[in-house]
């Protein structure tokens, strides 16, 4: 039976972490560290969520001079609502780790 969109364990893990602080902006590297997902798994998930309007993105100024601007992410209102529903439907064991918000991103 085909799986419903955005219900893979990896996507649910990302959604759960983003939902921890839905109004904060999160960096890709921090998301990868906290979810344990490799960049090649994480970024296609973020890209798909952004395409579906679940995620908003923003380029943030670098914290250190000479570094490139960084891409940051947070759930949209609709995204947060749908994510809560999806997570409620999913088994709680899938969401194992916690996400700390990016410092100073609120």
């Amino acid at each position: 039976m085909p799986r419903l969109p955005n219900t893979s364990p990896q996507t649910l893990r990302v959604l759960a972490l983003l939902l921890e602080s839905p109004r904060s902006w999160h960096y890709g590297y921090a998301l990868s560290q906290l979810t344990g997902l490799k960049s090649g798994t994480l970024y296609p998930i973020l890209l798909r969520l952004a395409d579906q309007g679940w995620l908003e993105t923003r380029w943030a100024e670098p914290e250190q001079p000479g570094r490139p601007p960084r891409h940051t992410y947070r759930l949209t209102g609709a995204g947060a609502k749908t994510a809560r529903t999806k997570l409620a439907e999913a088994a709680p064991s899938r969401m194992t780790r916690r996400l700390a918000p990016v410092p100073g991103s609120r």
Partner: protein
Amino acid sequence: MQMHGSLGRLADGLARQLLSWLQRRVEPGSREWLDALTAESECADDGWQRLRWALGGVPLVWTINQRRQRNEPTRGTMRALIVPGVANIAAIAGWYAVIIPAIYGATHLFRCHLFFGNEPGGCQEHPFVFSAIAIGGAVLGMIIALALRARFAAYWWAVFAAFNTVGSVWYLRSGIVDLPRYGATQSTMLMAATLGVVLAAIMRETPGTEPDHGPSFLGRHRITAHLIAGMISFAMADALIRMRDRSLVADNVNHYALLGCAMFAAILAGLIRRHHRIPVERPL
């Protein structure tokens, strides 16, 4: 400790090269997500971590390009698929329809059999005629394919142009005294030529995707790049033949044949240019 540091720097360099190479695989208007991944790679603590992070760019680029293809208008996509497809089929099948009758015509004209062994009355009694048909046919096929803008067909004929040329030179030099051994080498020669063409084709940059800081190493040193492609192809094919049949390795002619096929094919493939497409800025 010093060794560890050098390896870390090597991994760091590889990561940066990989990210730069990936940037060229994506059209400028679709690079946002790859730029995001590239910027985050600066957070990695060491070269190995950066390399692991950069490797994630490979599936990301695949996803980006898949999505771009899905978003293209269907009519344009269908046309973009059908027109080159027809041109490629025409350039391959059409040219076989010319070469095969030409070979049969030559056997009829010279009253010989279509047989390349050492038996009397075979094609080998007219080596220059049949070599000319084989080489000329492949080269002309490549030229016609290029005229039709059928790039796949041009690469196809480049493989056979290299293979037929080296095979003919070998035949004219020494004849085929041991047909079963020649058969094994022939397969490897074809593989070396194919690898040479494929590697050279992969190494070419798509116009409009050059990095902002100017042409890449491959763009600046095309001949070197194609020679490297040829050497890698030779090494791969030669390694294969060593594993398969050690007795063939004893004969230097096999090495020269493989080297010739791989290098010639890579150089020929380097002559096949990509059609310049004006990059279209389209939302992902």
